[in-house]
């Protein structure tokens, strides 16, 4: 088990290195010039050149890459070209909201989607099944921002239940946090619920066709026991997997919801940085999100053995 964990962790290194190369090249080939952005409207070409020189943008690519990776390994993510703030500080300021909303989203999604999927599989081809399926297809079909605006319109402006925008840290109380976080989390949940409910349904259907389910029924187990004790745990691994791969989707959704609900998170930070060609921030953010993705999926892989004793490392 320990050996397996070690090997899996080592396997992260080449992947992250590839991500780093990829991100670095991608950005350096981008036509945007951060020097021009900093210099502003009145700059002359000579001034631009001086700024470029000062920022080290004139060095050969591979030198820039090596310098960057070397600093990365020392934990130095660099300094924002635009605001001159350390990138690590910018990220530290911003991960809180994104994380708390992402976690809330996952909680909401799992709490809603798993029972939905179980119900749909149990009542296969019934009205409930079609309702769940329709909802989950709808979740994939409506753009996140449209959902967000609809929620704002209905829950904030018409009903006045929640504030329209903003973020309150959990430190200021659960109620305050939730009142701000619940709409963005619900918005993000639509696609996640759709994903998990589908996966739950599909795997429950599969598991419910298995012999041991027939065995459980033959034992006289009531449906609740059949579904939750026997079936769900066996369907857990693919559901976990989809929660992991859906994490990428979540990050994509976060970018949008943070914009719609004006949440000071890392999604907006990244988009702003991309539009501003703030290389150190973009690089750090893409690396960070990729690393998170890899990490989350690694943890999920490792957690399989909690659900399925056949999986041992």
């Amino acid at each position, binding site marked *: 088990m320990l*050996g397996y964990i070690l090997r899996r962790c080592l396997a992260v290194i080449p992947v992250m290195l590839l991500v780093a190369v990829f991100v670095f090249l991608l950005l350096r080939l981008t036509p945007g010039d951060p020097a021009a952005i900093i210099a502003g409207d009145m700059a002359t070409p000579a001034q631009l050149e001086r700024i470029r020189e000062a920022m080290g943008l004139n060095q050969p690519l591979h030198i820039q890459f090596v310098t960057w990776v070397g600093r990365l390994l020392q934990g130095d993510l660099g300094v924002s070209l635009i605001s001159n703030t350390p990138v690590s500080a910018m990220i530290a300021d911003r991960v809180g909201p994104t994380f708390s909303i992402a976690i809330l989203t996952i909680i909401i999604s799992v709490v809603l989607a798993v029972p939905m999927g179980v119900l749909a599989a149990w009542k296969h081809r019934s009205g409930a099944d079609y309702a769940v399926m329709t909802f989950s297809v709808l979740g994939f079909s409506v753009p996140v921002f449209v959902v967000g605006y609809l929620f704002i319109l209905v829950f904030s402006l018409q009903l006045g239940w929640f504030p329209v925008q903003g973020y309150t840290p959990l430190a200021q109380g659960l109620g305050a946090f939730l009142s701000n976080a619940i709409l963005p989390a619900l918005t993000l949940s639509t696609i996640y619920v759709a994903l998990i409910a589908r996966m739950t349904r599909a795997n429950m259907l599969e598991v419910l066709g298995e012999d041991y389910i027939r065995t459980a029924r*033959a*034992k006289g*187990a009531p449906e609740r026991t059949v579904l939750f004790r026997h079936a769900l745990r066996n369907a857990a691994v693919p559901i976990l997997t989809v929660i992991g791969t859906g994490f990428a989707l979540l990050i994509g959704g976060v970018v949008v919801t943070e914009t719609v609900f004006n949440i000071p998170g890392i999604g907006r930070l990244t988009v702003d940085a991309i539009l501003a060609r703030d290389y150190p921030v973009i690089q750090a953010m893409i690396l960070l999100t990729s690393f998170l993705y890899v990490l989350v999926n690694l943890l999920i892989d490792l957690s399989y053995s909690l659900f399925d004793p056949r999986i041992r490392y």
Partner: protein
Amino acid sequence: MFKTRNHNDAPVVLQTSGLTVSLPETPGNLKVLKSIDVTIRHSETVCLVGESGSGKSVTSLAIMGLLPQALKVAGGSIQLQGRDLLPLSQAQMRDLRAARVAMIFQEPMTALNPVLRVGDQIMEVMELHTDLPAAERRRRAVAIMEQVHLPDVDRIFRSYPHQLSGGQRQRIMIAMALVLEPVLLIADEPTTALDVTTQKQILALIDELQQNHGTAVLFITHDMGVVAEIADTVYVMKRGEIVEHGPVDALLRQPRAEYTRQLLKAVPSLSPRPARPEADDAVLRVERLNKIYGGGGILRKLPQAHAAKDVGFTLSRGRTLGIVGESGSGKSTVARCIMRLIDPSSGRIMLDGSDIAGLSRAALRPHRKKLQVVFQDPMRSLNPRWTIAASLIEGPLNYGTSRADALAEAARLMDVVGLPQDALGRYPHQFSGGQRQRIAIARAVMMRPDVLVADEAVSALDVSVQAQVLDLLHQLQRDLEIAIVFITHDLRVAAQICDDVIVMQRGAVVEHGPASEVLAAPAHAYTRALIDAAPGRSWDFQNFREMPKVPHAEPA
């Protein structure tokens, strides 16, 4: 010979009368079961026998009230100890299951919940039906596990299903079924997936427990050998109907229905057929063949598996060599090595005088056509997207035969394997398993091979179809002088088709010789155990009589 207990006075445990099951939402209200009448008495074993699709499993599920949603009971009654089960609510049925009627299934691999400890699964039955305290539940679970002769009960109690062998899992299933002492046990092909030696133990166990508890058993099987071993009463089913029933002795001696006779006649005899004269032109010679799996690994040494150990044999033109063994014996590994579908670790494979063991893909190509194969699973051995013609001519086209010639040969072979000409234009899914296996044989024969490897080629087929396919192989071999390597776990099949037999155990050859000697007078203990375990080995089904006494039956 057979069970001759008389249960006529025993109280009736289960009686179905006029049980009809249909697919209510299909056009024509298709009937899956047509008026099934079965009676089972206290401590009686009733065998429900039939080929696939006969409806025997549907009958058992109807009794349990576990029919799939699409199926509905359309008529008749199911009386358990005089109480009609059909009007009962879901909850009432649940209370009966396991407590009064228990069931065990074919696949012990899949019938246990893989994520729960087996001890918990046994105790769950008591949780559901009794209010025994936990300690008592545990005590009873351990007790029943001991009754089914599980070793090291404490460890197994805490084990997950995947940590147990197939036989152990089936014992767990039986323990689970019997822990509440039900009046009726339904066993749906409970030994089909097991090796013969394990099958024998499980059959003995069911018998023993039945004696002890007086449980009535409804035993569903397709295997006449098993029927001969275990049944008091036999019901023969065909396409949803009971064609004949009666005490086992009467049914096997004097079958009345034509279908029953057919079924019995199709059961291959265990007595080996006489070997054909030995030819001296060896077409295939295997020498010290080894295959070792694993052992690689970068960060840690992976465990090695020696799947074939120093296997060697010689096969001459027109003869059949059987490789016999239980699962894991390495018989398929040998076949795949010969076919060079996997690379042998060492050894020589002499095909027509040249060693093909170490040849590269390209160098192997000219030899390929001499060596053809038929696989076990008729569903997967033909490309589902290709017409039969396309599958048949693939090989000849590879070796430069013109399309027209290949098609002509394909058409000719259709006659040989007994399929209509228009079959060439159709697709595999339009054929039954037996037909597909004929097509697969035709595909191999198209290449005019010297050697045909048949890897469990009839194991997935019903017994009547099996007989036809074996006949076909026999006929082709006679006409074309093909040498056949026949891999099988089934001694009856081996006895019918093989001239020589190799018996394999854990990768090694334990016995090698003419079929008549090996099967009639086994020298090795393992071979003897295999033969002893073959169900119904003392009955000659084809001739409706006992087997002639053979000397080897006495312990050496």
